[in-house]
């Protein structure tokens, strides 16, 4: 269709109101026929200036903000922030707190990947079925969050020095149920999508990132691992006692959208493994170190990062010995993962651009903050 005639390129706005931009995000694509010849990102529709707001609040008060950045993985965001504050103030977390944190972070990864995989399948055109199946499983995890923290989406569960509450007695059977019911679900998804010819045709070779490109574009998480780079903060820079658990890093082959998808699918299996180990060896004792409510960390700076479901989630804090952070910076993985979007989409069709965007797994709340 394209290339037959000298056609005039025209601009098509994918978003901000579009079914496949997963929020108010916009790609200004210049297309020639169906071929994308230029792509420009427009974002900031959801900008709330969290970094400024956080400078006016105490360290503890900032935890709810971190829920609202990446609202699909609030536990991970809480955890990253608390780790940064603990690093800044030199606070030790008791082993039970760490184990609970690990379980929660991994459950959150499962929930977030459910969403990512479902939405990605939806972007390739599988009409709602994978996303519904994924939601069905995600509900079980959200129920666990509700029982534990009282909230399903914005949990606000982690605290500086541990977690907010101890686990309830219902917690363990619920997690055991997830551990029992997730592996069949992942196999089901694999049967539905991984071996599906149409799915492979749509995603193989689409949005290819070479390892050099992925490194140079500061990508992280499944984007990096899909390109064959074995990099996982949980392995490379263990926090919360991740070094005790036995798990593997899944890495892809060519760095295309399909590889990112199978990496996410495999990460869910690894997460289940981690949860199993953490739950079996859940230590007793206190779940939290008591820290003063108006925490005043010593003067200095700290950069702590965790492996959030979307990649490296870092918090850079500067303290001036005041009750609130002097500088509060979030390194948002889905924002920085977008920096290679243009390179991935240009040359493909509009349909490919949607698949690429789905494979990045953006959360607009985190992009815009």
């Amino acid at each position, binding site marked *: *269709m394209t290339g037959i005639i000298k056609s005039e390129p025209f601009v098509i706005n994918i978003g901000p109101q579009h079914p496949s931009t997963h929020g108010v995000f916009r790609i200004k694509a210049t297309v020639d026929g169906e071929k994308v010849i230029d792509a420009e990102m427009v974002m900031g529709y959801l900008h709330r200036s969290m970094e400024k707001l956080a400078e006016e609040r105490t360290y503890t008060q900032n935890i709810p903000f971190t829920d609202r950045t990446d609202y699909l993985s609030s536990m991970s965001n809480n955890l990253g922030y608390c780790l940064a504050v603990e690093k800044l103030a030199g606070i030790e977390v008791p082993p039970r707190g760490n184990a609970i944190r690990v379980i929660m972070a991994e459950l959150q990864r499962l929930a977030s990947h459910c969403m990512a995989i479902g939405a990605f399948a939806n972007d390739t055109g599988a009409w709602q*079925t994978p996303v519904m199946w994924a939601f069905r499983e995600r509900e079980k995890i959200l129920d666990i969050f509700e029982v534990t923290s009282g909230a399903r989406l914005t949990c606000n569960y982690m605290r500086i020095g541990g977690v907010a509450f101890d686990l309830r007695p219902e917690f363990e059977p619920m997690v055991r149920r997830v551990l029992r019911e997730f592996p069949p679900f992942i196999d089901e998804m694999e049967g*539905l999508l991984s071996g599906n010819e149409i799915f492979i045709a749509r995603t193989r070779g689409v949005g290819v990132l070479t390892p050099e490109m992925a490194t140079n574009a500061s990508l992280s998480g499944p984007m990096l691992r899909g390109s*064959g780079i074995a990099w996982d903060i949980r392995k*490379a820079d263990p926090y919360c006692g991740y070094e005790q658990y036995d798990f593997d890093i*899944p890495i*892809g*082959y060519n760095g295309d959208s399909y590889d990112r998808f199978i990496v996410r699918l495999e990460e869910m299996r690894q997460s289940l493994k981690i949860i199993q180990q953490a739950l079996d060896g859940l230590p007793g004792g206190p779940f939290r170190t008591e820290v003063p409510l108006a925490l005043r960390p010593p003067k200095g700076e700290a950069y702590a990062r965790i492996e959030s479901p979307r990649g490296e989630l870092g918090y850079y804090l500067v303290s001036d010995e005041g009750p609130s952070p002097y500088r509060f910076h979030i390194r948002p993985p889905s924002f920085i993962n977008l920096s290679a979007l243009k390179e991935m989409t240009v040359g493909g069709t509009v349909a490919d651009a949607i698949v690429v965007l789905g494979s990045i797994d953006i959360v607009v709340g985190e992009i815009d903050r």
Partner: protein
Amino acid sequence: MTPFLVSDKWYDIRDLGNLSREILEAADRILPFGVVYVLAALIGFVASFLLFVLPSQLIVGVYGERRIIGRMQSRLGPNRVGPFGLLQPIADAIKLIQKEALTPTRADRAVMYIAPIVFVMPAVLLWAVIPFGENMVIADIPVSLMYFLAVSSLPVIATFMAGWSANNKYSLFGAMRIVSMAISYESPLVLALLGAVVMTGTISLSGMVAWADEFNIWMVFVQPLALVIYFICVSAELNRTPVDIAEAESEIVAGYLTEYSGMKWGLFYGMDIGYALAASGFAATVFLGGWTFFGLEQWVPGWLIFIAKTHLFYFLFIWTRGTLPRLRADQLMAFAWKFLLPLGVFNLLIVSTERMLWSEQDYAKGLIYVFALVNIVLSVALVYAWARFNGYRPEQTPTRPRLVKQAGGYIPVGERS
């Protein structure tokens, strides 16, 4: 065929065709010339509406489409309005009628207004030639297969009008895609049907049903490949989900429907189901033996068998819609030209050869079963061989990622960690 219980009388309600024929013949004796045509049209319209449009909207629109898909997606589907949610389409229609039908400022108003009407008409016209039962065909014209193909090429124009007139870039994408799809998928579709025509030696749908009845075999067993090609092509032409690139909601919002709202949108949406049903009815007639079922039609009304077969085929549409992702536009074109068209030609060659052999054997009844067996084997072999010839190697795609124990830099493919 001699009915076992069913007499040829008008009061036998198991075959509604007798009734209408009796009425029409009686009317023709009394009334002046020409009025009986109007009567026939009225009866046909009411019958088709009662028998198909209404049940299709109610039973298939809710139960076939939404409930089955809901079941596939592990949710309930509509179950609130009326008993078991049966009245949901009516509630939807009332809602849609109340909604404002927006027209963009710079749209081509006239064309945008006419497009839904043009889209609806062929959906109703298609049913005219499909035999519901023994005498239950509204217009038993000798070229009814051609008629079906001709009428089913009209909605393409309507969807193009809809997409082009809205003056929206997404709509234009949809229009562009549907036009190119129509060009690509018409030829394999006709080739697939040509196989059936060559085998039966008729282009009348009633004739095809009679053929299936006479030789006690359905066309699908004789030409499984043709049914597969027909199914794929018709899904493409009807924009059903595995190949619905013209209204791909994740790519181009809603394609040609983007700017439509209210009942204008509702007409498109409802008639999508109407077309899918008509295509299923056509497939049931050509490939599944129509209203016959190896003699069962002597006990059960033929139109019930026909409706069952239609909905069985329609279930295939729902099934694929619920499970498969969508192909890209260029991949679909390549699939039509590189895969379906050659396979259609091969199928036609095989069928023509068999037909020649068959006519030399004076249409021996047993031979057709041999052909069926041969064709089933040949179809599988042909698809496999042609896929291999085109470089299709499924085992080369790893579906599991590599696993490494230790974090580090880039690990090239093939290197053990």
